[in-house]
């Protein structure tokens, strides 16, 4: 991790690779993240409706959904999906490059493989996970609005207005900040596991597997710390 901070600000910058990784992490994950978020929005609304109806608080569903999605479900679901999709890809890709001596080939060509492979990918995940979370939040709202219209009637505009009116600075700001940390740990752990893979094909699978496990745990730990810190504010 220290090496990352030592190298990330030092030129030459590998912009081209950063953009390509942003495309892979961001664009290529959008559909999966959107689908998951949509389902989460629908399920959250359907499952909470009976309880809310019992208290005559149907009109509070948009607010309940927005706070849940923005503070917790959007960031965490996005991060966990990315642990599986992006972290495992990076672990396997770099592990495979290690096993087939491609990383050594970079090293002997006087190309810094850490900067080219690890720094670029970690920067990409750090930038893209927050963007994916925003997309996930919006799509989850859409899912929740559609689910609400199964039994009740609400216009999209009214639903969004009601949802946003329940959000405060402390709901949005800490949630956005923690997504950068989620992105960072997903990238750095995925790359670290792959970069440090040993020789042998088995290590590629292990690198991918341990990248997912370690980054998922890291995401939950960061989420817990973020909740504690937000609580103190």
């Amino acid at each position, binding site marked *: 991790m220290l090496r990352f901070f030592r190298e990330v600000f030092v030129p030459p910058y590998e912009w081209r690779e950063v953009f390509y990784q942003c495309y892979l992490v961001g664009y290529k994950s959008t559909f999966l993240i959107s689908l998951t978020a949509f389902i989460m929005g629908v399920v959250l609304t359907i499952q909470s409706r009976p309880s809310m109806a019992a208290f005559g608080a149907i009109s509070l569903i948009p607010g309940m959904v927005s706070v849940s999605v923005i503070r917790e479900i959007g960031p965490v679901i996005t991060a966990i999906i990315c642990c599986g999709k992006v972290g495992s890809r990076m672990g396997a890709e770099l592990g495979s490059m290690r096993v*087939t001596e*491609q990383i050594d*080939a970079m090293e*002997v060509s*006087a*190309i*810094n493989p850490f900067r080219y492979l690890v720094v670029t990918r970690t920067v990409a995940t750090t930038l893209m996970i927050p963007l994916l979370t925003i997309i996930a939040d919006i799509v989850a709202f859409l899912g929740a609005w559609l689910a609400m219209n199964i039994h009740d009637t609400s216009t999209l505009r009214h639903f969004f207005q009601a949802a946003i009116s329940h959000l405060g600075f402390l709901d949005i700001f800490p949630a956005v900040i923690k997504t950068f940390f989620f992105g960072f740990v997903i990238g750095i752990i995925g790359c670290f596991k792959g970069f440090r893979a040993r020789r042998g094909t088995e290590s590629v699978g292990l690198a991918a597997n341990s990248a997912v496990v370690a980054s998922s745990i890291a995401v939950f730990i960061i989420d817990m710390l973020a909740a504690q810190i937000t609580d103190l504010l």
Partner: protein
Amino acid sequence: MNYIKNDTVPIPAADTSDQPDIDPQAMPDASDQPEIATQPEIAPQPTPDTSVQPDETAALASVDEEPVVLIRGLVKSFKDHEVLRGVDLHVKKGENLVILGKSGTGKSVLIKCLVGLEWPDAGTISIFGEDIAALSYNKMNALRVRIGFLFQNAALYDSMTVRENLAFPLRQHKKTMSKEKKEALINEMLDNVGLLDSIDLLPSKLSGGQSKRIGLARTLILRPEIMLYDEPTTGLDTGTAREISDLICQMKRKYNISSITITHDMPCARITADRIILLKDGIVYAEGSYEDLEQSEDEWIRSFFY
């Protein structure tokens, strides 16, 4: 005959009988010679027979010009397993040194030490007169640009096409070179290895021999002065292996490259070697030309030839 053998533990050899006569007055000044570090502590060895085993100074004197690669007392262990136990060798400019040895004798480890992929436990490695252990990361990288390394499996970047594989080192090291010049250089290198028509293919679409050729082209594109070949013909059919061996010779002639080739393949050694070193149990067991070693009466040496 330039090879030696000891009945118990073999000692690195460098008989000067086949070397050109050297006028003592024409000898380079001692200060021009690469610095030789104190020999590392290695496993005790029997006293060499001085009638055939020259001391280190004599070994250096056999090099009629400053060697591009000079290794002295190289020791490398992995945990308790001592792979290299004090290897001494040199490579002169324009020379192709072939290193032969059975599996597990540390041949690949030896050339990986030359480019900093492995770091020796003891001993010195001088390349172009510079002790690589004393180099900073940036200086080591500057040196690496002057050294090409062809991996056993070619190690092509499998997410890139052939064109991108060749363009990648240029993009990193020739930033001021125009796009047209880079393209011309890529085409020239692919033409050299006879695979110009594969320029847009991914490595997964290439055969083993084609991959090796592309790997060679990618390595040569930075015009290295030293080439290190790690088993260049392993896994190839006889015909393709012959083509790769010929290609190594062609490239050496065309670009005047010094090289070290690690191989088990005797036809490859015969075609490419100016001099051969045999590694056994982590040290240099014998040294000489292909013909010299072929005529050896030592059973272990003969086992490579017959």
